[in-house]
């Protein structure tokens, strides 16, 4: 019996029009993807493969030209998202920003306060909680970005390059957060170029190239075909 899906994408296509002459560029050329509940799913691929666009369409930030996206959770209230290279409001403090995000989900003041403080602790930003975000380093912004993605205690978490800009300590902390989400039965989908992290964290992976998913399976299946995940990745994308 197949596990229920947290995210199911079928035949997804996305065409954008660029330049003065509105030239059509097909970014996604029929993406099929299924993320089962409680998976830690790695979406891999070279730059320009369509990973970020796939996630944006799944979230409704972009409209699909064709195909279907089905969230296995009850709407965006149960989804958390960290964009790539996140940028937030300069003149808000970390605490104010998380409080703002929590309010967008309609959390009451009591729950909001507890949740914000616990997330600040989890991402190691307690000491900088009152500092304006414009004074945050890239790594700190990445951490506050992860915290805002978790503020609603989501069932499905989509993380776009979550390790970017983090120092080794930050990376360990983010890995712990992802592991803890997995232990708590949540589903995590993340895009990453850091294959060692993918190897360590993911249960399943999909590899994209030029707007299509060209391989999908478990990490063990990948490692059965090549000595390392890097070798397997190179083998698939250069085939």
């Amino acid at each position: 019996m197949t596990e229920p899906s947290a995210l199911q994408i079928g035949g997804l296509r996305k065409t954008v029009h660029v330049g003065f002459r509105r030239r059509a560029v097909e970014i996604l050329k029929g993406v099929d993807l299924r993320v089962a509940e409680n998976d830690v799913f790695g979406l891999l691929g070279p730059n320009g493969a369509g990973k970020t666009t796939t996630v944006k369409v799944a979230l409704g930030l972009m409209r699909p030209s064709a195909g279907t996206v089905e969230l296995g959770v009850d709407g965006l209230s149960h989804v958390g998202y960290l964009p790539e290279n996140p940028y937030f409001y300069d003149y808000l403090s970390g605490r104010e920003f998380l409080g703002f995000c929590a309010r967008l989900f309609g959390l009451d003041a009591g729950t909001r306060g507890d949740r914000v403080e616990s997330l600040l602790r989890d991402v190691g930003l307690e000491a900088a909680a009152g500092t304006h975000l414009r004074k945050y380093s890239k790594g700190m912004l990445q951490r506050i970005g992860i915290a805002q993605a978790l503020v609603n205690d989501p069932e499905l978490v989509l993380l776009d390059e979550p390790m970017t800009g983090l120092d080794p300590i930050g990376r360990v902390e983010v890995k712990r957060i992802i592991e803890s989400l997995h232990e708590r039965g949540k589903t995590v989908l993340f895009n990453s170029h850091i294959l060692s992290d993918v190897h360590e964290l993911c249960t399943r992976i999909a590899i994209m190239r030029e707007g299509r998913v060209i391989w999908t399976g478990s990490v063990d299946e990948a490692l059965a075909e090549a000595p390392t995940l890097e070798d397997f990745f190179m083998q698939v994308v250069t085939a």
Partner: protein
Amino acid sequence: MNQIAAIAVNTFKETIRDRVLAVIVVFALIMIVGGLWLGSISLGEQGRMMKDFGLVAVTFFGLIVAVFVAAGLVHKEVEKRTVFVLFSKPVSRAAFITGKFIGLCGTMAAVLAGMGVFLFLLVWAVAGDASGMTLVAVLMIYVQLLAVMAVTIFFSTLGSAILASVLGICVYVAGQLSHNVLSLTRLGKNAVTEALSWVVYVIIPNFSAVDVKAGVVGEDTLAWGQVALWTGYLLAYVVVVLALAALVFRRKEF
């Protein structure tokens, strides 16, 4: 409702803490104080001159804040990609536009209240004139700027922030002149130009109808019934323009 309030509070905090805003307000206060000099060279008309000059300064700097902050509100969110964070949450585009506008209304109220009270106290301290009409004039400037902000937000959903600022200023200037243009075309007795002027008159609100500066300084008599009517029109205009902005913004992809 909760989301609109959250976005409004966030917008208010962001804009009120912006240093550029503080610089503009300081310049405005300096200009208002500059009215002291004008007052001192106008024999027996010191209070009137100070009020007149001060209200022009309040209008000018209020307009700068309205167009430049409103133009950047939506555009900045898109350019800096903070919209990714907002719209990956269950936030509608209409709630976003409404929240942004309400937050900016709060900022504009704080800015104009600061400038208005400062002008009132200055006139009172120097010329002994404690008429509350100065504050009423500032309130009517606020009503005009609400429409300018709504229009600028609408334009910012269509194009760049610079274009939105320029068009926002154009609408304000055209709104100050639209009544005169209509009167002039009536004199010409050309049905086509008169009809065109009517269209412009409806599309671009008649800001001069709620501009009570001249009445406050005693140069004109105030028809409060007309002012109330046009205030209602301007507020309805704001709602329509914001609805259009939300419609346009709903089509946007990020």
